[in-house]
């Protein structure tokens, strides 16, 4: 079965600083990997996704993530954080064929941005 670990519950960064949110997954084959963002009182919005090919994927709002099979990781990065990036970020793993297009989510990382 798939599982996702997000080791950091909270992260605080200064506005303009770089950001990296960690995600480790467990799955036997090549997974489909996603990062979603959730602002307070809102639903989940897709930032980016990885299926195959180039292991560095670009998403919306200036985010990118890199898939590293050897480390079972899919870390999210942003070179310069804006105050509006403060939100909760969820990493998710899916395997559409094997698991009927379901996603398994990590526990989330809350990002705080200080000015």
């Amino acid at each position, binding site marked *: 079965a798939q599982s*996702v670990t*997000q080791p950091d519950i909270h992260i605080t960064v200064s506005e303009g600083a770089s950001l990296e949110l960690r995600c480790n997954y467990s799955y036997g084959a090549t997974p*489909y990997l*996603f990062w*979603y963002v959730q602002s307070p*009182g*809102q*639903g*989940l*919005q*897709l930032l980016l*996704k990885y*299926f195959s090919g180039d292991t560095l994927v670009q998403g919306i709002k200036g985010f990118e993530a890199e898939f590293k099979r050897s480390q079972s990781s899919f870390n999210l990065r942003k070179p310069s954080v804006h105050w509006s990036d403060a939100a909760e970020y*969820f990493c*998710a793993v*899916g*395997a*559409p064929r094997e698991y*009927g*297009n*379901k*996603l*398994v*989510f*990590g*526990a*989330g990382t809350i990002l705080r941005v200080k000015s």
Partner: protein
Amino acid sequence: EAGVAQSPRYKIIEKRQSVAFWCNPISGHATLYWYQQILGQGPKLLIQFQNNGVVDDSQLPKDRFSAERLKGVDSTLKIQPAKLEDSAVYLCASSLGLADLTGELFFGEGSRLTVL
């Protein structure tokens, strides 16, 4: 394109009362999901429908939770009787279908339930 619609956005009930949540997925999306998100945790799948059939309800507490998608479009999730631990945000999501290779789910804004 209209997104996933959910109602009500907020609901407060006493324990042992009942509550129902409604979801209308994106037009043309065959697969519909209900996720439960408890404060401080990631969303957990409760039930998945493909059209009007259940694909997976292994995590649904069937003694108190029920869900239906009678015409293969909108869906209702019911809790009866509610317990304190049911306090959570109930997220509805939809996707094109089981054959969709993108695997992307589209989420509604959620229904926040508080059980007192």
